[in-house]
């Protein structure tokens, strides 16, 4: 459990004039479950997207299990940016689950999962299908593998998206508000699957406003405000004895009250 899997070092991100992430640092250990919390616009999505370089940091370095993401140092210790091929190679080690599911609209649930297996991991077709079925079963969707995205509920779609990411057997899973587009019943379906994953050794970084879930699920919670790190700690501690006024103020807005959980 002690091995460090992910490091973000002095990360800054600007969109034009606006600096939306300011000097963000984090280390995530293998198997750790980390929650990123913060108000809307505080930069949670941006941080998550920088981890797999869907967004390029303006400054700072990201490191995953021995390699920098987005580039590397050559023999002369000069920074060389990653080619498209290198980036793809690194991204396949990171699974991502989006707020809006983003299932491939022209493919069935099964083929949403197999696409990466055959085209990225180059598995033979049979093996890809077997692995896809295994992961779809894991998210309780065995009966729906032939359905197209538009034929499934939001909760089912999000679980397919989780299976699609898991099937690549990534070192790290990123979740960006995976349930915020879902009603409470469907939210529960998805959270249950995530809770099951938490019991395995998977490393996860999750953005969510489901504070009840966060408290059970996470080893550590990080609170952000306006792109600035405010504090971190076990969720229990942030809920009950936050170091910062800002944290307690925000968490009280999240509808969490002492004794709720």
């Amino acid at each position, binding site marked *: 459990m002690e091995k460090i899997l992910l490091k973000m070092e002095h990360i800054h991100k600007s969109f034009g004039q606006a600096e939306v992430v300011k000097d963000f640092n984090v280390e995530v250990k293998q198997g750790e479950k980390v929650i990123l919390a913060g108000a809307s616009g505080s930069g949670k999505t941006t941080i998550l997207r920088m981890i*797999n370089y*869907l967004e390029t940091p303006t400054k700072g370095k990201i490191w995953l299990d021995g390699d920098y993401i987005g580039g590397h140092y050559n023999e002369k210790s000069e920074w060389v940016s990653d080619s*498209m*091929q290198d980036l*793809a*190679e690194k*991204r*396949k*080690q*990171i*699974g*991502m689950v*989006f707020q*809006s599911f*983003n*299932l*491939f*609209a*022209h*493919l*069935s649930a099964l083929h949403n999962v197999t*696409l*990466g297996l055959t*085209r*990225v991991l180059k598995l033979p077709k049979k093996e890809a299908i077997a692995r896809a079925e295994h992961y779809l079963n894991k998210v309780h969707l065995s009966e729906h593998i032939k*359905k*197209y*995205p*538009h*034929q499934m509920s939001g909760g089912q779609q999000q679980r397919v*998206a989780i299976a*699609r*990411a898991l099937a*690549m057997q990534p070192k790290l899973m990123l979740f960006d508000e995976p349930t915020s587009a879902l009603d409470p019943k469907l939210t529960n379906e998805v959270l249950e699957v995530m809770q099951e994953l938490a019991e395995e050794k998977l490393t996860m970084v999750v953005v969510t406003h489901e504070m009840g879930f966060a408290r059970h699920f996470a080893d550590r919670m990080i609170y952000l405000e306006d792109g600035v790190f405010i504090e971190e700690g076990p969720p229990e501690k942030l809920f009950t004895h936050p170091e910062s006024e800002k944290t307690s103020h925000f968490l009280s807005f999240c509808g969490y009250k002492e004794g709720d959980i």
Partner: protein
Amino acid sequence: MDISFMIEIVPRLLRATWVTLQVSAISLMIGLVFGIVLGVLRVYGNRFIVWCTKGFVIVARGTPAAIQIYAAFFLLPRLGIRLPLFAVGVVALTFNTSGYQVEIVRAALESIDKGQIEAGLAIGLTRWKTMLYITLPQAVKRMMGPMTNEFANLIKASSALMLISLYELTKSGHAIIAATFKYAEVLVLVALFYFVLVQSLCKLSAYLENNVFNFGKTADPRNEFLN
């Protein structure tokens, strides 16, 4: 109207219709190759490539088909390229339709939700593979409608090939009128033949769109209303 005369000229017009269909269909198909290749480059290429495809589109769409046909007819021999009349027609129409098809492909590619592309990148596909396996297949369905339009336009534009005396439908009708002066009969038939040609294409395309490229009918919300 002289019905027996009309029946008499049907075989001649049918043969000419076949030429019209061939020259348009071949140009459309070659144009499709250019359209997709240039359309993809237009979206994914570097700045220089994008600039070149834009220039091509401006020229191809900005000049009338008749001028392009004359240009092919007079300029190709100057460049030492001697082609049969039919091939000259194909070159001119291909140039013409490619300009429109590049834009059709570009619009379809750009209409695909960015989230689809990000999901592709996130599982480790490269940008090109994302385009090949995700964006393009979804875009094909959205291209069907505009492509049918373009084919209908192309069939009609091919009538300008009469300027270089290619015996397609319009030229053939023109020749019959010149010989017999029965313009009403000929014009009605010629118009009818064009109409049937274009109409059957639209039906074929609608079939393809809904049955071959249907992808569970998600890629295009219009289907909700069509079915």
